[in-house]
């Protein structure tokens, strides 16, 4: 593989749903590149389409339009057989460690399941299976005595380790992490984040890290993409985003994070109203209705993503002129 070629290229990805009240624009025209070994954080509030985007990239949901190139192969054009082969290299870790594991399977069965489905291992070779399972359990920090436990006997942190082990079993290149730590307690969250960082280094993984927690995403990502109602509003390096947010939505979002330090009083940028619905959205900027800087031009035409600084993309006509 060419080093300079991105591992994942997402081009104009769209996912619409037909609902009784109109077309829901869950993901609208998302484009980005992701290089091997890097982490792209995707942040946004509930309903902004970040999870749908992750699933559309993996074709767990069929994209409405757009292209997803993985290692140069167009995922959206694959047939069933090619897709099954691709799934070896693209995996997903889910948010809910309770719902994402089959309650009828033991830890080792769950972790071995992808290898069996992909015919990577002889499913009748019991010792071989157990050996491999123990290897992966060791990798994700699960004690060997849990090998035959059932998920309902384990706590959230351990279950999430099973989920990670399952995703790693096939030795993938790319993992979509859909809010992997949101359901966990603070002290366990740090354990899991460290684990994910360790295996990333060890195995050269590329992550698409979806979350609503901005402090986690800053710690974890190289680049961050901010979404609002299905659209990208800003994308740049993680440090840059926090140092110099340019889109008014990003600014408001960052200012709303409660700082765990009582000496720092937050300077909140008040936002009008709440998230509007992504069903039949208006033509112009979708944030215009809540934006403190909105003018008429904002709601007249679609706002293109502009590169204002090298690697810093913003979808706002006033970006650059606004105070930071």
């Amino acid at each position: 593989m060419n080093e300079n070629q991105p591992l994942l290229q997402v081009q104009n990805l769209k996912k619409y749903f037909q609902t009784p009240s109109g077309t829901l624009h869950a993901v609208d025209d998302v484009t980005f590149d992701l290089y091997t070994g890097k982490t792209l954080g995707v942040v946004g509030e509930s309903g902004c389409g970040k999870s749908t985007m992750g699933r559309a990239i993996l074709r767990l949901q069929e994209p409405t339009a757009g292209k997803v190139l993985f290692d140069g192969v167009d995922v959206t054009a694959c047939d069933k057989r090619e897709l099954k082969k691709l799934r070896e290299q693209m995996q997903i870790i889910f948010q809910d460690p309770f719902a994402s594991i089959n309650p009828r399977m033991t830890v080792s069965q769950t972790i071995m399941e992808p290898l069996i489905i992909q015919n990577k291992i002889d499913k009748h070779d019991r010792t071989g299976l157990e050996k491999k399972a123990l290897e992966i359990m060791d990798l994700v920090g699960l004690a060997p005595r849990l090998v035959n436990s059932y998920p309902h006997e384990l706590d959230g942190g351990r279950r999430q380790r099973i989920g990670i082990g399952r995703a790693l079993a096939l030795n993938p290149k790319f993992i979509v992490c859909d809010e992997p730590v949101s359901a966990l307690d603070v002290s366990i969250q740090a354990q899991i984040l460290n684990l994910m960082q360790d295996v990333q280094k060890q195995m050269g993984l590329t992550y698409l890290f979806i979350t609503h927690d901005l402090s986690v995403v800053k710690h974890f990502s190289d680049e961050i993409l901010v979404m609002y109602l299905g659209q990208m509003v800003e994308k740049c390096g993680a440090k840059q985003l926090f140092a110099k947010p340019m889109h008014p939505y990003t600014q408001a979002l960052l200012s709303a994070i409660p700082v765990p330090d009582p000496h720092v009083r937050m300077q909140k940028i008040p936002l009008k109203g709440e998230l509007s619905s992504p069903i039949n959205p208006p033509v112009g900027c979708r944030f215009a209705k809540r934006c403190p800087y909105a003018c008429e031009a904002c709601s007249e035409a679609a706002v293109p993503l502009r590169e204002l600084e090298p690697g810093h993309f913003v979808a706002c006509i006033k970006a650059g002129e606004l105070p930071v």
Partner: protein
Amino acid sequence: MKKQAAAASGKARSLGADAWYRFKKNRLAVISLIFLCLMIVIAFSTFIIDWATDSSFYDAKVIAQDLRRRLEPPSWEHPFGLDEFGRDMLLRIIWGARYSLFMGMAAVFGATLLGGFLGAISGYYKTADGIIMRVMDILLAVPTILLATAIVAAFGTSKVNLIMAILISQTPTFARVVRASVLTVKEQEYIEAAKAMGASDMHIIIKYIIPNSLSPLIVQCTMSVASAILSIASLSFIGLGIQAPMPEWGAMLSNARTYIRDSWHITVIPGAAIMVTILMLNIIGDGLRDALDPRLKN
């Protein structure tokens, strides 16, 4: 929380084992289960006796009439008394158990397979859902007894037809139960996880959907055996089921009703046999439902 401790000590308990552990705590359900198993063993032993004696015991004791001693009330010699043809009621109840129990079970077993299959298909594939479920709705709209009556009337009274009639009338219930449960399971994230691994539809149905939709099916089975037994008894009562002189409980009840004023025992005993069996099945069903209810997990 103790479960976590159990896991820590290396003893794994599957969901099934866990449910059994909870079921065992329900004393009434356990007693019912023991009693029902006993009944099944006794009913089964009648086949062995018939086979070993070449039905001579059956002919001499269960079928042969002794009109001199008809309607004799319960005594030490005949604890359940004698019926209107002077036959021992206890033996007739025992021999009758096999019709009620085994035919009921056979019908429910068939209905589970057929209904389960149809329900799983319509739950998993949206396209088949409309057609299958409308057919099931039509079947459900006809009262069970009426449907069974129609089938038996059309194809004649035989044991196979009786089983088929009850099987068909029970199928829609199973299809509904399984469909609902498949629809819930289908939305779970672990199904999506399996898809992300590249699992085929068949693999997902067999390894993920079926094992996780079994609980309501098991409960429905127990309850349905009870209603199947009632249907068999009812059909026999109106003369469309098991024919005389075979000792079926419903048929016994039907024949006895002429003598209800003078000899209480020949109506009460088969009636009580039906009632007790159904009560036990329902208690077991309730116990299973409580034991398998996911809300009690954790």
